[in-house]
């Protein structure tokens, strides 16, 4: 198993712990997005605790903010804070590790959680980079259900208009949202065509839980000049825990002790 894939599975194991202990969080989306976060934080992005205040750091925004459980684990692993604290206090009284990204947590750029904000914020960050002649890139991760938010299309239009090639969006296309499939809830199967129509460079990743494929996509995006890029990552919701995969009830389900043990067993089996 390669380094990034192993890392993503280790983080899955931590997420299960965090979500089980807190009886909160959005486990299905955490498990679909964790490979994206792993590749970005441990290979692609210039973001680390030592140079967190540097103007040249890459910017990251989790627009699908409800999967902050996965982001906290990733940032903790990266050394922004004690990961164990996030696991033990997630969503508890007085904790900074609340259910959506907030700037009281080291490593979080902006508060988010209400869907459809991240891409516009990213446009602003990418415009600032251009104004200042800086080469940092801005990465925004969105959910596929989130693509029903109209504000995204205002952002897509502006990013295309300005040809923001330092902006890279990723859509975590796990195909499910709280009510059911994205197709049933609000059709978004021609997302690539929509982005193209707004002047974006579109990269499809067949297996969005495959770190190697994701990494190649981010490298391709970085090489593309004159256009913003979007990576459409076809993921599996609940990836890595058999009984959660592709089940809408695991959008934010709470595990029983038995389910928790089975999830741990499966993930440790992969890591063994």
């Amino acid at each position, binding site marked *: 198993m390669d380094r990034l894939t192993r890392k993503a599975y280790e983080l899955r194991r931590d997420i299960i712990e965090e979500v089980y202990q807190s009886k909160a969080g959005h486990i299905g989306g955490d498990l679909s997005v964790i490979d994206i976060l792993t590749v970005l934080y441990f290979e692609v992005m210039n973001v680390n605790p030592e140079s967190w205040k540097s103007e040249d750091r890459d910017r990251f925004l989790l627009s699908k903010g409800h999967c902050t459980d996965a982001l906290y684990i990733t940032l903790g692993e990266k050394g922004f804070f004690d990961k164990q604290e996030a696991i033990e206090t997630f969503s508890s009284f007085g904790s900074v590790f609340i259910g959506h990204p907030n*700037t009281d947590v080291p490593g979080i750029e*902006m508060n988010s959680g209400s869907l459809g*904000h991240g891409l516009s*914020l990213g446009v*602003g960050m990418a415009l600032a980079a251009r*104004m200042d002649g800086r080469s940092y890139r801005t990465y925004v991760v969105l959910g596929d259900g989130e693509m029903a938010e109209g504000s995204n299309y205002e952002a897509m239009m502006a990013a295309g208009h300005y040809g923001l090639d330092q902006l890279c969006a990723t859509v975590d296309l796990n195909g499910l949202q709280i009510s059911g499939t994205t197709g049933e809830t609000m059709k978004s199967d021609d997302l690539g065509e929509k982005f193209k129509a707004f002047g974006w460079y579109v990269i499809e990743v067949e297996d969005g839980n495959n770190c190697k494929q994701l990494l190649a996509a981010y490298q391709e995006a970085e090489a593309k000049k004159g256009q913003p890029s979007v990576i459409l990552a076809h993921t599996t919701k609940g990836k890595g825990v058999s009984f959660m995969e592709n089940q809408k009830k695991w959008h934010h389900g709470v595990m029983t002790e038995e389910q928790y043990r089975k999830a741990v067993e499966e993930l440790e089996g992969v890591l063994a």
Partner: protein
Amino acid sequence: MSQITNRQVICDTLLDAAKKDRNIVVVCSDSRGSASLAPFAEQYPKQFVEVGIAEQNLVSVSAGLASCNKKVFAASPASFLSTRSYEQVKVDVAYSKTNVTLIGISGGVSYGALGMTHHSCQDIAAMASLPDMRVYLPCDRFQTRKLIEALLKDEKPAYVRVSRSATEDVYDENMDFKLNSANVIKEGADAVIISCGELVPYAVKAARELEHEGYRVGVIDMYCLKPMDEKAVIDAAEKADLIVTAEEHSPYGGLGSMVAQIVSASCPKKVVNLALPDGHIIAGTNHEIFQYYGLDDQGIKRAVIARLSQGLVK
């Protein structure tokens, strides 16, 4: 009367500041003309961002820029800025505490006969209820310049509402200005009129005429709606028998509500709130609308005399 609008003054102030600060950025939503910011766009094209008619994007893009050390001024009609992009203001500006000054142009009933869609009679209530958001309604060109100069010096979110047309001068260029301190224009023992924005000149005129008729009436310019200058309100309530508020806003959640909250808690006195109605607003120019609803000098004067002479106070 001055022909210089407050929006022009904002542009002039930003042009002056941008000479020395390349981090000042203006963002517009097809509003550079109506905001009088076209000269800024022409002189500083690299510090100007156009987002098209997309007010949600206007606010979030501004917040993104501000998170990268830009001092952002986002200008759009107050109506759209305060309601269409309300959630973007709440989350990306107020909650994230970004250095964005929202400039609500053509505020209140500035657009007159264009109707409800273009009126912003809820913006004080909407903006003031957001944690960390400051709310300012300057009255004339001198105060507007001082306010913008002060806001350029800090890094906190703010909402500034200005009207479309020029307002009569209340001050001159040597005016005293302290951010978040109300301007006590005149003290009064019978009544004090507390007003903000475009209605301040009317309040001043009303007080002057009332004085000629033997009433001792003060005027406070509460341009800082939030944080409100509570001390100025309490001082006025301690000295006068009646407080009258006059505002270009709905009767709910604006200046009158906030003043009444302070007065009732600290120094109970009768507070009369003059505001726009909670309902359909008649078509007309802004002055015609003020006149119709008793918010012009004569209307304010009538209201003061009615309360004082009917013995409703004391």
